[in-house]
């Protein structure tokens, strides 16, 4: 088991190293190296997953391994693997999507001048993401956390000649860093108290009550900052739409299916660390995110951007699931979302590949030209909209049920459910808007339409595979049993309130489920119908309504002005500060230094002038006097040696005479 884990981790790393150094010289620029490594990893992951299913126990730990890594003497930092059911799930999700994206990329990226570099980065990402899933400690998770950020940076900026891509990659990395700093602070708090990074030991310390109360809440919220950054939660969600500058398969893999879900995974992994207050915080952040992103998605015209906002919104759902105690629901939605969102992105990539534009204004009627893409895309759309019996229905319903249950036990927090339900409707609306605008109706750009064609097999096979996975209704039962919310009762007293919270919830869970199911179906249907009315039958003019609701439309079109807000505040303040400090450095501090130098120089000049007039004056007087004497005596200086000799001797005689008498 551990051997496979090591192999799973090393295969993409080796592929990365091969690709980056010799990829260019390999046949087919080495795409088979990365792809092959990924499929091998997939096979191994499936093996682990099968083991997990075979044992079929809740939260089963399949294997662990630790190695001494950094030894400070009093403090050891270990590196290790923790393979439990959650890991097994994540491994399969990551390797599966990653393999399909690799395959898809062979077609999509064909002919790119940096083809081998692209696969190298994909491998690097796969390595980091798998590491993130496999490690058994906070330190390791932080390392891989940053590494996925790096690969995301590299892939978003893959076409770095475009300024927008370069900007987007930078924005992604820095925004993530902001979250990471919070996460790091959280890790520091936990480490300083428990003296270890290992999940199990930290959990044990929490269970023993070594750490608790406000400090634990703060630590939890700080940890969650990392997830806010990585999973593009409000208010750090701004990087994800821009990240669509990267190649579309990358968007599918990193910015939809796996990396952005890492935040959710991390929260799930460290779930027992979160106090009820921290969980509430998570739930509200998720709610706000889900709603904001969904509303923005309504008006965007760039197909990938709509999908990006949809991703943000769905990530918000997952967070709400976790935050309201629906541990299984959140992680289940992570899994289903990974498949249908990857499918949506790959489908959109297929469309973009065909028409060479991302603007939905220039598409339309592509159904006939690209049947496979259309049908798979439709399945994914139905799934994300929560249409029975597709996978999205089950997972989203679970989250709604969790939120409703939470609201029923804590009526003050009922708005979470309401907002979420509303967002579900909005989701159905804007997702079908994509379908209608892209695949139905009359082609709006004839020339592009004529050029369009179905994508090659390497691209359509992944679509079909993902579509099949999105249909899979049987998922639910497995997951519910295998990923059970960690038994909080087994931990110390501090989580007692959370236990109560969970118990109450359990009581209402059943009724909540039923209500949630029906309401979500109704809302989804309404959303789809409205969408059809506006964009399929064209009974209502979208433009007219946009005109009528001009302020709202503009507000949404500008994404709540988040970018502008940040540009005007944080970025501006930072740049201002940096200029201020630099000027301070140059003018004040260095000014003082130089001023000291100048002052010294000035003082020395003053002293010099005193010296010149006073002291030197006296000296000069002496000199002049001597000079006068000299001029009088110069007659003696005949230049004649003999005269000198005589004078000297004369002096000798004189001296002698004086001495004697």
């Amino acid at each position, binding site marked *: 088991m551990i051997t496979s884990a090591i192999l799973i981790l090393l295969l993409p790393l080796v592929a990365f190293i091969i690709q980056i150094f010799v990829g260019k010289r390999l046949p087919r620029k080495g795409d088979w190296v990365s792809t092959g490594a990924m499929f091998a990893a997939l096979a191994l992951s499936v093996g682990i997953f099968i083991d997990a299913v075979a044992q079929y126990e809740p939260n089963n730990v399949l294997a662990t391994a630790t190695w001494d890594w950094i030894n400070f003497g009093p403090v050891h930092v270990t590196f290790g693997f923790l393979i439990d059911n959650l890991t097994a799930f994540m491994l399969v999700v990551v390797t599966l999507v990653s393999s399909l994206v690799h395959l898809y990329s062979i077609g999509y990226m064909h002919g790119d001048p940096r083809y081998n570099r692209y696969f190298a980065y994909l491998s690097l990402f796969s390595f980091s993401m798998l590491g993130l899933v496999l490690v058994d400690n906070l330190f390791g998770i932080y390392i891989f956390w940053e590494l996925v950020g790096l690969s995301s940076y590299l892939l978003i900026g893959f076409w770095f000649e475009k300024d927008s891509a370069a900007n987007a990659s930078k924005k992604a990395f820095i925004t993530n860093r902001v979250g990471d700093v919070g996460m790091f602070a959280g890790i520091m708090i936990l480490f300083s108290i428990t003296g270890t990074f290992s999940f199990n030991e930290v959990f044990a310390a929490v269970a023993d009550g070594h750490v608790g109360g406000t400090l634990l809440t703060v630590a939890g919220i700080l940890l969650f900052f990392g997830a806010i950054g990585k999973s593009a939660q409000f208010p750090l969600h701004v990087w994800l739409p821009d990240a669509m500058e990267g190649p579309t398969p990358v968007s599918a893999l990193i910015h939809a299916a796996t990396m952005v879900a890492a935040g959710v995974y991390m929260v799930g992994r460290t779930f027992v660390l979160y106090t009820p207050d921290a969980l509430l915080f998570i739930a509200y952040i998720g709610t706000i995110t889900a709603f904001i992103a969904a509303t923005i998605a309504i008006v965007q015209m760039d197909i990938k951007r709509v999908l990006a906002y949809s991703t943000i919104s769905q990530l918000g759902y997952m967070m709400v699931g976790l935050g309201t105690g629906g541990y299984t629901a959140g992680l289940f939605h992570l899994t289903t979302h990974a498949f249908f969102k990857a499918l949506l992105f790959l489908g959109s990539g297929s469309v973009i590949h065909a028409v060479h534009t991302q603007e939905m204004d220039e598409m339309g009627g592509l159904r006939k030209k690209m049947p496979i893409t259309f049908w798979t895309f439709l399945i994914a759309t139905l799934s994300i909209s929560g249409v029975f019996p597709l996978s999205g229905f089950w997972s989203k319903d679970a989250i709604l049920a969790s939120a409703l249950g939470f609201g029923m036990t804590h009526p003050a927090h009922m708005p979470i459910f309401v907002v979420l339900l509303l967002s579900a409707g909005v989701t159905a609306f804007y997702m079908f808007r994509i379908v209608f605008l892209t695949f139905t109706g009359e082609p709006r750009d004839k020339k592009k339409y004529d050029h369009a064609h179905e994508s090659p097999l390497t691209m359509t096979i992944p679509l079909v595979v993902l579509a099949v996975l999105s249909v899979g209704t049987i998922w639910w039962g497995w997951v519910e049993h295998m990923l059970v919310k960690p038994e909080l009762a087994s931990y110390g007293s501090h989580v007692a309130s959370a236990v109560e919270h969970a118990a109450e919830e359990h009581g209402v869970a059943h009724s909540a489920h039923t209500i949630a199911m029906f309401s979500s179906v109704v809302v989804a249907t309404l959303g789809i119908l409205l969408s059809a009315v506006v964009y399929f039958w064209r009974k209502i003019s979208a433009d007219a309504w946009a005109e009528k609701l001009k302020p709202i439309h503009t507000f949404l079109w500008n994404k709540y002005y988040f970018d502008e807000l940040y540009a005007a505040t944080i970025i501006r303040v930072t740049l201002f500060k940096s200029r201020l400090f630099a000027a301070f450095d140059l003018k004040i501090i260095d000014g003082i230094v130089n001023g000291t130098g100048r002052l010294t120089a000035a003082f020395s000049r003053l002293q010099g002038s005193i010296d010149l007039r006073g002291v030197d004056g006296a000296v000069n007087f002496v000199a002049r006097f001597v000079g006068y004497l000299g001029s009088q005596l110069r007659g003696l200086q005949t230049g004649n040696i*003999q*005269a000198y000799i*005589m004078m000297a*001797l*004369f002096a*000798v*005689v004189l001296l*002698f*005479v004086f001495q*004697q008498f």
Partner: protein
Amino acid sequence: MQDIMFYMFAALTIASAGVMVFSRSVIYSAVGLLFTFFGVAGIYVLLAADFVAVAQVMIYVGGILVLLLFGVMLSQRVTGVNMRTETLQTVPAAIVAVGVLFILFRVISKTEWLVKAKTTFEPTTAKLGTLLMTDYLIPFEIVSVLLLGALIGAAFIARKG
């Protein structure tokens, strides 16, 4: 006998030195100097310094004086300079000279010399040679080098003009 010899040589020396000093002709001066050197050589003999005496004759008479005469002749022949040598400031010079003489006489006569006369006369050459090769080896070598340097320097200066 020795005393007589001393006075003879002393007289010769001083007289010829007087010729050298007071003669107006350079040639005469040179001849006077020649005899002075001889006189001094005699004095050396009286002082039992046979080797020094011989060296005096050979180097001064045979070397330096010839050199001086060459100098005189050479400049005269080439240029026709008046070889009369004129004198300057004779009176002050005389006063000073007499003063110095007076001082020297006074010092000499007033000083209690730690005299320890030796009466024997024996050849000094061997002893000198030994001394030069032992105690005075380094000065000896330095002088050799000095001599060489001086000769080269002299040749250089004279040639360069």
